[in-house]
């Protein structure tokens, strides 16, 4: 298997020590730590897992370890940052086992944030209201949105988040 990073429909921005990838089709933001970002950049569709692992020390200062690549590819696949749809369901090695063996710094990590539309700057402008429970549970992007009870989600993550002005 020779994974290829998805380049269409994504916008990439380096932010501090993270690589932030905005999926324009799904309006999701994925934050890749340095390990995940390094593997993603190496995925050119021409190299298999072993070759990708051999490139890690020179390209990213990481151990030559194919399990790192497998875990990263599994997570990148789930985040739909690879072109091959089959990789979305790829089995991943045990993160815990890798953590014990390599330490946290070497592990790939991807945090996904559901982003409102690209036009939103500050307050939510979704045309459909969200449920109060989405606001109370601090669903990503809920802040500032109009709730189903016609209140603004002004205190996301609290028990009465939809408590703002009427919308």
């Amino acid at each position, binding site marked *: 298997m020779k994974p290829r990073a998805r380049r269409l429909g994504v*916008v*990439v*921005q380096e*932010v*501090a020590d*993270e690589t*932030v*990838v*905005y999926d*324009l089709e799904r309006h999701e*933001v994925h*934050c890749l730590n340095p390990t995940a970002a390094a593997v993603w950049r190496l995925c050119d569709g021409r190299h298999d897992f072993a070759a990708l692992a051999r490139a890690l020390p020179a390209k990213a200062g990481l151990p030559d370890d194919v399990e790192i690549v497998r875990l990263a590819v599994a997570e990148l696949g789930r985040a739909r940052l690879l072109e091959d749809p089959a990789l979305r369901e790829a089995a991943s090695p045990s993160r815990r086992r890798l953590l014990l063996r390599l330490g946290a710094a070497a592990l790939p990590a991807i*945090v996904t*944030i559901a*982003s*409102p*539309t*690209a*036009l*939103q*700057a*500050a*307050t939510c402008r979704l045309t459909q209201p969200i449920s109060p429970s989405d606001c109370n549970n*601090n669903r*990503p992007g809920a*802040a*500032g949105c109009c709730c189903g009870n016609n209140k*603004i*989600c*002004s*205190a*996301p*993550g*609290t028990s009465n988040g939809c*408590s*703002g*002005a*009427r*919308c």
Partner: protein
Amino acid sequence: MAAAARAADTSSSAGDAVAHVLAGSWRRAPDGPAVFAAQLELATPRLLTTGAGALGWWRVRNTVLEDTPAAANLHDAYRVHAAQAAVHARERSIALRSLAAAGIEALVIKGWAVARLYPEPGLRPYGDLDVAVHPRAYEHALAVLRPPPGEPHALDVHRGLASLDRDFEAVLARSRTVADDGLTVRLPAAEDHLRYLCLHFLKHGAWRPLWLCDVGAALEADPPDWSRLLEGEPRRSDWVAATLKLAADLLGADLTGAPHTVHSRVLPGWLPRSVLSTWSSPFVPHGNRAPLGSVTLWHPLRLARALRLRWPTPVEATMAMGAPCDGTPRLPLQVAECVRRVVRFAPGPPAAN
């Protein structure tokens, strides 16, 4: 100094907490007073809903608070805004090339024009690209920039600079250019833009703390010619000076180079109180609320609630009535503005049967 004085007050309102967290947040190394966990907890919802979440994160990263749940939400906002900044860069390039190809001279204002003054992309989110064109070129610009059917409109075209008491051609003559991704972008002169930002902040009821951060960022990253900044229609100059002092008092903005009249100005108590009160509560700016006519006015409770929602703040009333930012009571202005709004937006009497 006033911002530092509030540092010890841990029993602050949400508005105070917002101001405390945002103090100096536009700097590469924010050096405001230490933020307490309770303040961050209190401020975070308001920071997120007003677009200042990324700045909140910038303030608390690399501190003991960065691992708190509140900080995690702010960090997410920073990441999202950074990603969106990259998307907007593409849209901006397309729009500006279209304008250039059509021979339309445009000034980029607000949004990106001020976001570029912050140390990192994503710290200052923006949605639409705001461009101001000469009033004569307005219709043409709209036609040039109209998006294809079904696509969202990411541009806000301004007919001149209405709220700025300056002739557009004079502003254009003083404008400067900067390079952005191979494009030449025209921006207003620092003093024109800062004056505009100050007036914009007050005109919209000072509801968004981010806009006062913009004033701080512009003061420090793009220092103005002070005499040019403060020249113009005296009432507006008064409002500009008040906003600058407010940025200093509430957020610790640096007024180096400002004339003594600005430095030593003592703001009337109602002004910072009104702003902090606005920042404390979920606030829907006037103009974004449902018209009064859509409310069933003949139900006393609903009418009372509708009027309470539309009761102008001291800042709104001052701007609407064109009053100075001085120590005179605001209540008469608020009553007058409320009456004006009711008369303007209430429905007519029921039709006779």
